[in-house]
């Protein structure tokens, strides 16, 4: 049935490979953090063991280890200990089985360091901020960047001579450098914008104008710190793509046919934009990492910091939860772009039909 529908066959095939990638990814993401000999309970114990004596410390540690199913427990419910009196860690295989079991039930488990909080709670609370900061930045940046790039390629002349080096520079400035600079100039010296937080401390998140205004006011610096970079990067890519397109025979021919400039521009933009889509997909994949910087510099609410602390403290469930999220996002983005480009670009489709 797929035979006579090459495109469909292609999509199904791709989907298959992405599925494979997904499973390998979550497996790796599960085992990777657990390979080290670090143990999250140590981190908790450090926080709470001030003034404990040996026996109660031991009791506390065992309580945690049991709670998080990190140790072998003998029938009598006592923690198994090896010759040195160290607790016997649960086998990774066993943990993995539990993990898979929970995953299929869409249960991410509860965080270790933030016990007894559910991982889903943590993500739910933080994710909206990350999305609110990253999505508009990336998408807007992508659109405007491509617009500028195309314009520069089409106009050339002074505009291009100015835009191009600027774009290069913008894309060369590391996000955190620019962020720090913004904090220093507008937050601390001029005090035009708040340099810290996601909204006025006097408010709580709600659908009110006051909150919305405050939020957008606090939004400016973090947004700016990433935006210009995205724009720059995209503009450069788009510019060279467009210059290439403008040099092609079909544009020359269209000109000689007397087809209107706007139409020709549209041809160029559309064809040059196709490869850029892949860039967009990749950018979406780096959202959480990108958010991390903003959270560091502006202590903006979001998921990044949660992930970082989770990784540093070996908070396995939280790590797995977040990596799962990232994995799904990245793969979905890439897959949809794969398919989309296939639909938009007959060349690629043709290439596929004749078996790549």
């Amino acid at each position, binding site marked *: 049935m797929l035979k006579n529908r090459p495109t469909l066959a292609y999509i199904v095939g791709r989907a298959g490979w992405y599925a494979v990638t997904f499973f390998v990814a979550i497996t790796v993401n599960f085992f990777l953090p657990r390979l*080290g000999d*670090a*143990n*999250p309970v*140590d981190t*908790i114990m450090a926080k709470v*063991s*001030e*003034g*404990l*004596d040996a*026996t*109660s*410390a*031991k*009791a*506390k540690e*065992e*309580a945690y280890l049991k709670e998080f199913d990190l140790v072998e427990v003998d029938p009598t419910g006592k923690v198994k200990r090896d010759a040195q009196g160290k607790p016997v860690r649960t086998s990774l295989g066993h943990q993995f089985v539990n993990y898979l079991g929970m995953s299929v039930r869409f249960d991410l488990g509860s965080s270790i360091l933030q*016990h*007894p*909080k559910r991982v889903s*709670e943590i993500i*739910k*609370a*933080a*994710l*909206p*901020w990350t999305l*609110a900061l990253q*999505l*508009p930045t990336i998408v*807007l940046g992508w659109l405007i960047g491509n617009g500028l790039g195309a314009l520069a390629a089409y106009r050339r002349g002074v505009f291009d001579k100015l835009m191009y080096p600027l774009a290069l520079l913008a894309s060369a400035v590391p996000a955190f450098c620019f962020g720090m600079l913004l*904090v220093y100039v507008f937050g601390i010296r001029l005090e*035009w*914008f*708040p340099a*810290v*937080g996601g*909204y*006025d*401390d*006097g*408010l*709580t*998140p*709600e*659908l*009110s104008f*006051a909150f919305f*205004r405050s939020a*957008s*006011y606090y*939004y400016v610096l973090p*947004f700016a710190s990433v935006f210009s970079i995205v724009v720059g990067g995209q503009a450069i890519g788009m510019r060279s793509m467009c210059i290439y397109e403008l040099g092609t025979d079909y544009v020359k021919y269209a000109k000689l046919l007397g087809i209107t400039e706007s139409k020709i521009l549209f041809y160029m933009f559309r064809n040059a934009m196709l490869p850029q889509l892949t860039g967009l997909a990749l950018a979406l994949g780096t959202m959480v990492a990108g958010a991390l910087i903003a959270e*560091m510099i502006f*202590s903006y*609410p979001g998921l990044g910091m949660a992930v970082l*602390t989770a990784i*540093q403290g070996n908070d396995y469930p939280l790590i797995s939860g977040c990596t799962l999220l990232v994995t799904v996002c990245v793969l979905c983005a890439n897959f949809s772009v794969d398919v989309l480009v296939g639909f938009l670009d007959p060349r690629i489709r043709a290439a596929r039909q004749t078996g790549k």
Partner: protein
Amino acid sequence: MIDARRARHSRAICSTSSARLAVLGKRAAGALGLGLLLLGLADCRPNRAQEDDKGSVFPRTETFYLGGRQWGEPSTFNPIGTPGWPISTMNLLYETLLMYNSLDGRMQPLLAESYAVHDDSVEVTLNAAARWNDGQPVSAWDVTFTFGLGQRFKSLNIAPIWQYLASVRAYDKDGREAPEANAGQDYPRRVVFALNPEKKNPLVVLDALQAQIIVPRHVIEPLLAERHNDLDEFKKLKFEHGAVSSGPYRLFSSSSEKIAVVRDDDYWGNVALHGGKKPAPKYIVHPLYKSNDAFSVALRQGRLDLSTTFVPRIWLKAEKGVRSWLDREPYFLSSSIPMLLVNHKRAPLMDVHLRRAMAFAINYDDIRELSVSGYSEPLRPGIILPFGLERRFFSEEDAQKYGTWFDPARAKAELAAGGYTSVFGPRGELVETRDRDGKRVPTLYVKSPTGWTDWESIVRVAVKSMRAAGIDVRERFVETSLFWNALYEGDFDLIMHTPSTQPSPSKPWSRFEALLTSRDFVPLGQRMYKNIGRFNDPHAPGYDPRIDELLALIPTLTDDAVRLPAYRELNALFMREQPYLPLVYRPDTFYEFSIKHWANLPSAANPYLPPLIPGDRLGTNMLWSITPVSN
């Protein structure tokens, strides 16, 4: 009154609220882009964010912003277990029996109106006015129940106290022991903590009385019972809303951006303790910024009124209305001693000459000026603070006689005395250290967690000056997750640590105990939480029983005149043996405040309270004294 249903219900509330936040966030994602455009029009006058109050949930004049106590949203507000601010620290929601004033060393009343230390017991009488916010009186049974938990559940932080206690009993006013709680109209208010005759130590008991929050028995007990006394199950209750507590505030809201508590106007103590006055701030908000410097930016902007974070070069922030306890060096009130723990089970560190050589080699002034921004009195020998309350036990004479300080010449002398020789390279850099048999001493590593920048710089200075003196040491910065294991299991040569930080009635005894006790001595590889460097092994030949004798003796002494010689002896012993290497003095908690919105905060000039934030022990009392700045 909170029961199981209520608890479950409250969890429901929380999840729905976070769901709402999620929805909102998604809207925000779309909307904020547009918000930018609005912003183009919106004027950006300086500090607009701080100036207008329109639509604020927390009006600036009625809200006290403090920070630095909590990192990340607290996972639970369950008073038993491991809650975050404001429960992890005391007296905003749940209250202790007594409050210790580290300025004058006295205990101030809270739930307990008085206490007395007898030869074999400590007795406490509760304030008759003390009430839970559900109207129930705070009774002796609540106290016995609270401490009883420590006996039942070894994993609780109250558990250790029981090695010093024989029993905790409730007595009615006629001195008769009150039988099991019966909902009688009359309830007992006297509690007697009988000391364990083997380990007589009223000091640690007093510590506990000012450190342990009392929980409402009539709420907790049924909840525990429902869960067949399974503590882990019980800990899953988050006590977010409608929890029964005795303190002046209640939880208002908690998110990943801030925790807020709201004033309870019927707080029993307003009348009983504060002459009918109410605390000035209606709300206390603890924003959860993500890095230290964020807090100090907020301080400069006047968004934060009080912070306990480390703020370097505080004097540069004065122009922005930021103040600290003192307005000159050392700016803060130190109470703890960050030090390098030495592993006495690893050669050649058991050699006193080597340890003293290290102590003479380290440039303590560099540490003080660079690593801690000068927030420390000059370091003196020994582990008794040469200032504040402990000064009375500090002996200048001993310090001169036995002590160590930065003196490279003496360091070399000690090395020579130990038979060590140092080999230096052409450019004066250390190649290796040799012992008296001419064998190369393996490089000793100083462990410290990566990313703890202040400790990192302390270690760097220490290592640098020790190498200069010819001792072959190096930094080793390890992942935090590995650090703690290394610390407690004794997997280190030298390691950074700050023992027993909080000022409490038992200081300086508890500091000595934490560093020198040979009780529960275990070999390397097993966890040891005191005397982590395994100094003075009781099973080894050179064991000095005197140390443990003194540690056992001191708590039983009540008269300073008698304590002094004991402390002198112990401290001198520490100086001579130099088992560990004190580096600098640090405050228990930092204390920086802004004068923009609230006035009359305690400070060295106006020391009516020690430098503590509200919701941290005695610090809570400032809430009745501070006043909003009228602008």
